């Protein structure tokens, strides 16, 4: 029997699942095995964590078995990787198992680490300090919000980069809507605290959209670099001496790459893997590629970005197999809906070179979605994204009109 080579995908989240579905269609099954490993058996729809705390989505809406999104031809290994040995082309797992690879695709995502900031996971953690970036965090916050009597709500970003950088802002908008509907908006003081100089990560969007905060009566504290959380006096303090008091702190702790990256010595200071921003090949070794939140490339960490990257990476993996030159095709394209509350949303589209633009999406001049403008249609787009995610995106079915490379048509610069 001919000896088959192995493509190992590490992580079966958004990135790994898309890649498995794409590769299986093109890679010759007589010469290649495709193996995918994940520490858990559950696939979480993380964009849903934004809606869970407000009771807009339920638990069942955001979790499904990993296996049901993987093609039968792909071998799923439910194990946690403990070390990548790039010299030996092997991944070691906690159980003691090891898997040899010819091509490794790292898709281990990013997670929060609340221990990075003094006092953040102190006695008040999950009592008056919450996150919504994990399933458990979002669930605990839902219970808290259901009975909370009001006071100072502080929505906070610890440091950049974070995945889905607009999620905390959306959280503030949805909180405004949530407490409004409960008839207690006057009892809640909402403050948005960010390490950036403005509400949005891109100056163009900040300038266009800061009116939303005023309209919704949300205070903003910018350039805030948190040093510690004071559990006793309930306040957050920054390095320059600024202090913001809270009754309820909803924070996005430091986002880091997976521990296995750190243990393998493959990451930067936040455990993100140095990656070529055009080809998505790692800088560690030519037969290691990186996809999704695990990379260190300078674009947003988001499911939509992962989806665009996957198309380019797929091509490059095939080229690598055929010993052809890789194409530096990824342009940093990101496309995200921003919930603004009250049944409306915004849509922004940008890449490495272009800041968020105005215009129409996905079809030039027609839309139906409007870029950088609030609309009801955009909100339906955001909710429809969950269906698209489970039914098309993960399975690598083409999404009509939406292209990996950012299209400049129908957009105003």
């Amino acid at each position, binding site marked *: 029997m001919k000896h088959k080579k192995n493509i190992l995908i590490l992580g079966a989240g958004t990135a790994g699942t898309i890649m498995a579905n794409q590769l299986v269609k093109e890679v010759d099954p007589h010469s290649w095995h495709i193996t995918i490993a994940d520490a858990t058996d559950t696939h979480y729809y993380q964009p849903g964590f934004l809606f869970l705390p407000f009771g807009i989505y339920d638990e069942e809406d955001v979790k499904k078995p990993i296996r049901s999104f993987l093609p039968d031809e792909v071998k799923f290994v439910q194990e946690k990787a403990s070390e990548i040995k790039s010299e030996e082309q092997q991944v070691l797992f906690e159980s003691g198992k090891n898997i040899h690879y010819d091509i490794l695709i790292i898709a281990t995502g990013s997670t929060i680490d609340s221990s990075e900031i003094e006092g953040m996971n102190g006695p008040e953690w999950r009592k008056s300090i919450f996150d919504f970036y994990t399933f458990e965090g979002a669930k605990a916050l839902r219970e808290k919000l259901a009975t909370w009597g009001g006071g100072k709500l502080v929505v906070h970003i610890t*440091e950049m*980069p974070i995945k889905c*950088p607009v999620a905390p802002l959306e959280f503030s908008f949805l909180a405004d809507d949530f407490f409004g509907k409960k008839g207690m908006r006057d009892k809640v003081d909402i403050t948005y605290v960010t390490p950036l100089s403005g509400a949005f990560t891109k100056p163009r969007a900040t300038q266009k959209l800061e009116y939303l905060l005023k309209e919704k009566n949300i205070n903003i504290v910018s350039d805030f*670099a948190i*040093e510690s959380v004071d559990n006793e006096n309930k306040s957050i303090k920054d*390095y320059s001496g600024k202090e913001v008091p809270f009754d309820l702190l909803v924070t996005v702790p430091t986002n880091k790459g997976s521990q296995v990256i750190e243990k393998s010595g493959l990451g930067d200071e936040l455990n993100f893997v140095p990656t070529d921003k055009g080809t998505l090949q790692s800088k560690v070794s030519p037969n290691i590629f990186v996809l999704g939140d695990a990379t260190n490339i300078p674009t947003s960490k988001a499911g939509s970005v992962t989806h665009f990257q996957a198309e380019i990476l797929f091509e490059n993996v095939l080229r690598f197999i055929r010993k052809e030159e890789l194409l530096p095709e990824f342009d940093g394209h990101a496309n995200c809906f921003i919930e603004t509350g009250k049944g409306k949303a915004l849509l922004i589209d940008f890449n490495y070179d272009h800041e968020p633009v105005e215009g129409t999406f996905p079809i030039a001049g027609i839309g139906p979605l409007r870029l950088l403008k609030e609309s009801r249609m955009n909100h339906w787009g955001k909710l429809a994204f969950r269906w698209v995610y489970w039914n098309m995106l993960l399975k690598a079915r083409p999404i009509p009109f939406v292209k990996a490379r950012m299209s400049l048509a129908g957009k105003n610069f």
Partner: protein
Amino acid sequence: MIMLKELVGNTIDVNEEGFMTDFTQWNTQIGEALATENEISMTPKHWEVITYIQTEYKNNVPLSIRKIGKSGVVDIKEFYTLFPNAPLKTATKIAGIPKPVSCI
């Protein structure tokens, strides 16, 4: 948009936010003048940080406050003491390099 700016007898290109867009135009005199504009009076320690930042920039290493805190040049607390409020923004402005893109 790029604008021209006169500074200590030099013409430099800057963007809307006042960041230099062409590092080759930078010299210590300009750095000194940009510091004054940002209400910083430079000490040897300030220069050490600026030099570190410029070296990293030339090597294409993305900069962040965390990175500088781990540089061995200053810790985060000192970095804030040297360049109060928004240290990374102020320091990169003085160093004549683009604003770090860690903000996405």
